């Protein structure tokens, strides 16, 4: 869901040739045109691409915190970590830590301790109920938790988290969750089924203002009444006892459990929320692997290990996010941060095997993301399916990937990316075929060039020219079909408003999933009554298939239904699917272990540990 936006605040900086904020959570640029990628601002999306800025945007500080965040701090941190328990010489650290792996007593785990540093952006919110963007998502995942969580195992993408187990009634509408015993919040107070009921009802309250609660919890009987202000309690949520929660949803929806991995469904602490007022998130009490130790807007954010975490606690003592920006590559090379994306400008140098840095390059799995060109099917000339197909057939994505993007992009032919639940390897995409493109154009009502209205292609960005690959697309349209387009680039706020009001004719964007279910791609973007159906696409056959898929209990059959719908959507040429996420590379300090980025784009800080080093 979250739009991937790469350029944040830093569009400007990029223009300035300086990739300021390749923040740590973002590997290499998907389609590598650094300056204009289909992603806009900082807050909005979990970016995996080099973010300039951002927004993104990130931002603000106090002097002391900053002091801590610098290079001296690195040395200091490692030194103190070393004092903590076992000191292991760098060369033997790995072997030693493996040796202790079997030792149960956590106090003696050599992996424990240390401070992990990375560049970050200011989260829009720490409140799980309000989280919709990737930056906030990554942080709330560290501070809070819910009944289930995502893993990066494609065969088992969802596992229980605070729930020990759950059962589903035979009609598929009643879920009974059994919580783990002895759960506590980070402050040590008990966490029970009551807390879940309260948290969910609180997320739905109009005064909470969650923009997405209907999407994720609206299936539960009674939640929508709360959202609309007609109730304060949902009859669909029943607390059987401290450990047992029963949830009734309005119809069987197999993807319901997948939605419970999203922060809006996480449990919050009632005392904390009620006593803290609007700013309760300044000292949030959660149940995730970390707690928020300090936060200064635009300066730094410090997470500390939650020793009350239900599972093995994190290894790291602290995680320091530097929010004031800076020159990511230089900071990395100066060991001021432990991880960074690789700016295009440094890519060749860093990956050169003769370069020492190349030993710190780590592969990142392909992210689940689809870049696309969207058509507003209600606006001429995109109201004609033949015309849209002609535009699809005219684009030689393989050529663009090779010639323009150095093969750092994977041509896409449908919305669902490879490796994602429901990906269809047999999907028949509208592959490049110049003749068919011209045939389709001839069949369309815009066959006569005179009848073609002016076409304005809008991309989000902060000024400058559109990404090179889009220029290549426009060139192919012009050469093969004689269709000329004009580009306009608008910054994210404007883009968002224009697209919400269906004022854009044709636009480029990226979509990444919220939960591992085809629903998050196909239903959310193409169902005729979806609130974020940006293309205004409406096809009764697709709607019927989606309806059936929504309640179909058999997983294999569901996937089939989604794939059928996807094929129709592709044939109707609502998009020109452009790229799927590709494997990327990031730099991770050689002493850092266990840093992984999942295909959903978030990182797992809990498993990160730092080898100690002795200063001579």
């Amino acid at each position, binding site marked *: *869901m*979250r739009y991937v936006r790469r350029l*944040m*605040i*830093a569009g*400007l*900086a990029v223009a*300035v040739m*300086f990739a300021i904020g390749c923040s740590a959570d973002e590997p290499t640029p998907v389609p590598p045109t650094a300056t204009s990628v289909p992603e806009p*601002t*900082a*807050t*909005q999306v979990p970016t995996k691409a080099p973010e300039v*800025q*951002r*927004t993104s*945007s990130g931002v*603000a*500080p*106090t*002097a002391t915190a*900053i*002091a801590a965040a*610098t*290079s*001296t701090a690195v040395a200091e941190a490692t030194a103190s970590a070393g004092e903590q328990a076992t000191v292991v010489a760098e060369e033997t650290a790995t072997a030693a830590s493996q040796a202790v792996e079997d030792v149960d007593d956590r106090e003696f785990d050599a992996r424990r301790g240390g401070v992990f540093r990375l560049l970050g952006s200011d989260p829009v919110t720490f409140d799980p109920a309000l989280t919709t*963007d990737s930056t906030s998502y990554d942080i709330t995942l560290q501070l809070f938790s819910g009944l289930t969580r995502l893993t990066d195992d494609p065969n088992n993408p969802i596992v229980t988290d605070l729930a020990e187990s759950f059962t589903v009634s035979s009609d598929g509408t009643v879920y009974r969750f059994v919580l783990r015993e002895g759960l506590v919040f980070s402050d040590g107070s008990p966490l029970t089924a009551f807390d879940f009921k309260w948290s969910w009802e609180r997320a739905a309250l*109009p005064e909470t*203002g*969650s*923009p*997405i609660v209907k*999407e994720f919890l609206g299936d539960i009987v009674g939640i929508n009444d709360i959202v609309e202000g007609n109730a304060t309690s949902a009859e669909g949520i029943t607390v059987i006892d401290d450990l047992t929660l029963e949830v009734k949803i309005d119809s069987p929806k197999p993807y319901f459990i997948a939605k419970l991995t999203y922060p809006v469904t996480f449990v919050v602490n009632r005392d904390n929320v009620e006593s803290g*007022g*609007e*700013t309760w998130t300044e000292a949030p009490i959660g149940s995730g692997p970390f707690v928020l130790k300090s936060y*200064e*807007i*635009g*300066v730094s954010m410090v997470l500390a290990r939650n020793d009350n975490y239900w599972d093995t606690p994190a290894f790291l003592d602290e995680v320091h996010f530097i929010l*004031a*920006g*800076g*020159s990511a590559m*230089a*900071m990395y*090379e*100066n060991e*001021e941060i432990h991880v960074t994306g690789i700016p295009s400008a440094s890519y060749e140098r860093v990956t050169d095997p003769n370069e020492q840095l190349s030993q710190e390059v780590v592969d990142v799995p392909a992210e689940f993301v689809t870049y696309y060109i969207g058509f507003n099917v209600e606006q001429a000339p995109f109201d004609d399916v033949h015309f849209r197909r002609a535009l699809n057939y005219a684009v030689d994505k393989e050529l663009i990937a090779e010639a323009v993007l150095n093969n750092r992009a994977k041509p896409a032919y449908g919305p669902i990316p490879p490796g994602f639940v429901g990906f269809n390897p047999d999907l028949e995409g509208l592959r490049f075929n110049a003749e068919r493109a011209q045939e389709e154009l001839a069949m369309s009502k815009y066959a006569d060039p005179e009848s073609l209205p002016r076409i304005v292609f809008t991309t989000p960005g*902060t000024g400058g020219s559109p990404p090179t690959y889009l220029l290549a697309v426009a060139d192919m349209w012009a050469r093969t079909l004689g269709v000329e387009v004009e580009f306009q680039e*608008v*910054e*994210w*706020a*404007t883009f*968002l408003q*224009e697209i919400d009001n269906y004022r854009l004719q044709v636009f480029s964007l990226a979509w990444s999933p*919220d939960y591992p279910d085809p629903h998050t791609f196909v239903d959310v973007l193409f169902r005729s009554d979806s*609130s*974020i159906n940006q293309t205004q696409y409406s096809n009764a056959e697709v709607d019927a298939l989606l309806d059936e898929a929504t309640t179909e209990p058999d997983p294999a059959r569901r996937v089939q239904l989604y794939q059928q719908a996807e094929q129709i959507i592709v044939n109707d040429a609502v998009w020109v699917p452009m790229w799927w996420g590709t494997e990327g590379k990031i730099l991770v300090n050689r002493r850092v272990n266990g840093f992984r980025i999942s295909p959903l784009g978030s990182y797992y800080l809990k498993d990160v540990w730092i080898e100690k080093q002795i200063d001579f």
Partner: protein
Amino acid sequence: MLIYISRRLLWTPVLLFVAGLFIFSLGSVAPGDPAELMAGQRADPEAIARIRDRLGLDDPFLVQYTRYAANALKGDFGESYRYRGRDVIELLGPKLLVSLELNIVSYVVTLLIGLPLGFWAAMRQGTWKDPTMTTFMLLVYALPVFFTAPFLILVFALWLDWIPVSGWSGMFSTHAILPAFTIGVPGAFVFMRYMRASTLDVLGQEYVRTAHGKGMGHMTVNRRHIARNALLPIVTILGFSLAGLFGGSLIVELIYGIPGVSRLALEAVFQRDYPVLTTLTLLGATMLAIANLVADIMYSLIDPRIRLRA
């Protein structure tokens, strides 16, 4: 004189009100909706409507501005849209301080380099040294910050490893060195030119010739008669530049990761955080108004004609 100053003081709030109105009205005509940005792409229209309602965005523009102005008079500049529950002042305070520190230390670098160089060049007028130094400083002045900053980082932070790449821990820390030189050295060119011109002016004065004529040592003449008199006109220029001290230095802050006001301001633009933007504009306008006032008063003290006209 008192009448003149008080009249100027009375005008200042009017000026600020108009400046605020201007920036506020920009907000109402600019595309992009803060509520939409806060809600995110997934939000349904009702959720956006609720946020608009909470922020009072649906009220007529003048109602919104009057409300803002009334609160601002009480010292309440509202809450940030982007950072829910945070007072704008609480948000801006620490950032302004950082930018102020950064600018002060850069300013000191500018003066310490620019003034002596200008003096030095003037004393060598007619030799090759003067044009060489002037040309060199012009080149430095012309180099874009996005070139010099990464270059300095490369040399002093990565190769020599003397100073950290990024961050901020006050104007007296090593963090301040690179940014201060990045901003300060190019700025020195301007002061060098002023100082050079002003020194040349003084050099032609009778009293300088007299001083030399009566057998005073060169150093004494330079110090007592030339440098001192040449600095006089510079002092008024200094007053003017004070207004800029609270302003950020955007690119420098971005590149060195300095948590100053620029980053926040830039983000506020992209996020349509109008309370933050309006407050920043008002602060800037206030600084300018004060600096102008100070300069005017200084002039009127020096030049009676201005006083009379007023």
